[in-house]
């Protein structure tokens, strides 16, 4: 057991348990917060795997932006969770067992996928030891991003611009004059003005 392996196991358990609670918890807000926790766990695993830049980016984008956006959305619009019957996910599973859409089929699909992948991973031959990485992760990623992957990088910026425009256009209220007074990019911030 090395420190790497122990950290990986702990972080993996955190990620999986909070991932489970995202699907299972009865409260929508709690689910969103657990989603954030599971992102943090994934960021920790990136660190264990030596992807420092990606770990920082994961925290910055997933926790700082996406989770905040979802939580903010839930809070602003007062989205209630649908009353799906039983408290926990298992009560729901048992109750809906007969139903085609929400009963056995998704359960079998998800569990079957996991079991299939685990069996494949067990039987394949993998490199036992990772070759040591040379140089700093940050410099490598930066150089690759602006040489080999520069076209996807530019396309990503166009996608982001389109998303900003789309979010602003969608969340603008029709019954108001065009909200040109504040050019906020985040739909969350835009909603705040609208209310």
């Amino acid at each position, binding site marked *: 057991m090395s420190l790497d*392996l122990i950290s990986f196991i702990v972080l993996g358990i955190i990620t999986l348990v909070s991932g489970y609670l995202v699907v299972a918890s009865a409260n929508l807000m709690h689910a969103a917060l657990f989603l954030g926790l*599971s992102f943090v766990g994934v960021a920790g695993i990136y660190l264990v795997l030596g992807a420092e830049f990606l770990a920082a980016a994961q925290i910055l984008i997933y926790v700082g932006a996406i989770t905040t956006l*979802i939580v903010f959305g839930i809070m602003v619009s007062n989205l209630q969770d649908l009353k799906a019957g039983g408290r926990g996910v298992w009560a729901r599973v048992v109750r809906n067992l007969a139903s085609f859409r929400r009963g056995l089929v998704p359960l079998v*699909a998800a569990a079957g996928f996991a079991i299939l992948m685990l069996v494949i991973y067990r039987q394949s031959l993998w490199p036992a030891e990772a070759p040591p990485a040379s140089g700093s992760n940050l410099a490598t990623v930066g150089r690759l991003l602006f040489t080999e992957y520069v076209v996807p990088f530019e396309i990503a910026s166009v996608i982001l611009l389109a998303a900003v425009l*789309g979010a602003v256009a969608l969340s603008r209220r029709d019954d108001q004059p065009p909200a040109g007074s504040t050019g906020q990019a985040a739909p969350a911030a835009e909603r705040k003005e609208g209310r």
Partner: protein
Amino acid sequence: MVPLPYVLGLAALLFSLGLYGVLTQRNAVRILMAIELMLNSVNLNLVGFARYLEPDRPGGQLFAIFVMTVAAAEVAVALAIILVIAHRRDDVDIDKINLLKW
């Protein structure tokens, strides 16, 4: 060092959690969260392979960065759509949002 199958196994479990969520949930926001879980597990896979197969040219990490970018864009637009629907219909049950189906 963490063996590669462990990373892949974790990613598979996380993916199937997300898959189950997407298939069973009726709340649009909850489905969005489950999709994020699946995207994260894909990223884990990519980073794990990048670490083991090409540590000097981590193309997998680059792909993960692009996945994150697209995920951020996706959440922004999807959440805006959900908020508009919630505002108009007071409901985010995707089973009832079926206007385009008929």
